[in-house]
């Protein structure tokens, strides 16, 4: 399977505060595995119940890189809320992810 979907919210394009994220990885490379873990933890903590994550394995289907013009792996793309944002790297630096995703800390 090229994509695994973990849905925690009700609809992928649900209410305005619903987050749709795509994580591009390359099989089981160390940084890919790290990014998947970091993202899960992060979402459960900061966006509980209002996010959809799709993990896309570019080793299986490299053409999908075109959808978001992916160059480096892993890369996370925030499709919703607009505007689209990209974070390149394994998401290990929590502060950087918070700033890049423009998430205000606190509820």
């Amino acid at each position, binding site marked *: 399977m090229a994509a695994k979907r973990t849905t925690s919210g009700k609809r992928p394009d649900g209410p305005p505060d619903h987050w749709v994220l795509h994580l591009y990885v390359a099989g089981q*490379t160390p940084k890919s595995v790290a990014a998947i873990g970091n993202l899960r933890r992060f979402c459960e903590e900061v966006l509980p119940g209002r996010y959809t994550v799709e993990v896309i394995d570019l080793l299986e289907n490299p053409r999908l890189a075109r959808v978001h013009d992916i160059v480096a792996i892993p890369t996370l793309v925030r499709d919703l809320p607009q505007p689209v944002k990209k974070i390149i790297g394994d998401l290990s630096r929590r502060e950087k992810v918070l700033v890049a995703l423009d998430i205000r800390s606190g509820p």
Partner: protein
Amino acid sequence: MKKASGHRLADEAQQTLDAIRGGEVDAFVVAGEGAEKVLVLSASDPPWRAIVEEMRQGAVTLTHDGTVAYCNPELSRLLGLQRRDILGHPFEAFVAEASRPVVRGFMATHEERESELELRRADGSPIPVIAARSILHDHEGVQCCLVFADLREQRIRDQLRIEKDAAEEASRMKGEFLAMASHELRTPLTAIMGWAQYAALPSEIDDATARHALQSIEQSARTLTKLVDDILDSSRLSSGRLSLQRKDVDLRVLARSVAELMGFELSARQLTLRVEGPEDPVIVHGDPERLQQVLVNLLGNAIRHSAPGGMIVIRVEEDVAVARLRVTDFGEGIEPSFLPHLFEAFRRGGSTRSHRGLGLGLWIAEQLVQAHGGSIAAQSEGKGRGATFTVELPLTPAPRR
């Protein structure tokens, strides 16, 4: 809030670099032949190397003395050499001689900069490239890193565009010429037809009117002949089918006979013509009819562009190995911007249609002079200040007897 896409790309590039430096990525998507491919780095690869290996631009790193320490596959393809024939060699060996100072300039600085230069392929042919120097810090210290983008395709595109523009211009001028030619041919024909019909009327016409009719018909016929001759000549000249019947020609005699020939046109506009020349013959080896045609065209041009009552001077000179014919008028003059186009076919000065002609006269004159191994040039101080046309022909040393 929307950012400009260039800005966004730069942002992304910066982010990618940061992630590479921070060791946060371990795979890259590279564009292969039409399809994406994922490169996974092994633990020992420096991340930049994977990118540089796959990129569509040539790249080298140089040691401080200019020796090639690294070369990517694209550069080896550009140079037409195996990598082992590039690594360890002085980089200047792969650069066209004229471009070597540019490379030395790159080596002498630690700044980032860009410049055009020419690489030299193994077969000696040059490749124009734009080169960017950037700085690379790694465990071997600071190195000079050069990246090259092939400019050949762009050059070919530029060249094609120039040729296309020229072809379009030529076709536009041909179209204009056809329109002008039919107009010019119709005018004298209408005059001939008109007078012929008038003369054929049963009513009596007096002698003076009849004479005038015949003169007009003759004049119109002469204009027609000249137009048709010009068209035939230009077709002969552009296809290179012109043959010259050469003999010794005294330019002074030529100038006087042309002055006589054009007497009617001169007096019709009350113009005074002065012919000046040395006492001794000025002899060139050429086709007398063709040289006469040149002078008729130049004089005709001077007449058309002179105000009634003005003066025109034809001057014959002899210089070292050169015979010179100058036709000077004191009429309209030539706009400096039009000077370069003066001898082009189908061009006529001025924006009005007040001047008759197909715009072939000067072009034919130049072609004929060049066929004689000579040259023609025009000079004018500008609008309203007259013009001088100078023909130079190789001088025949001394009349052989």
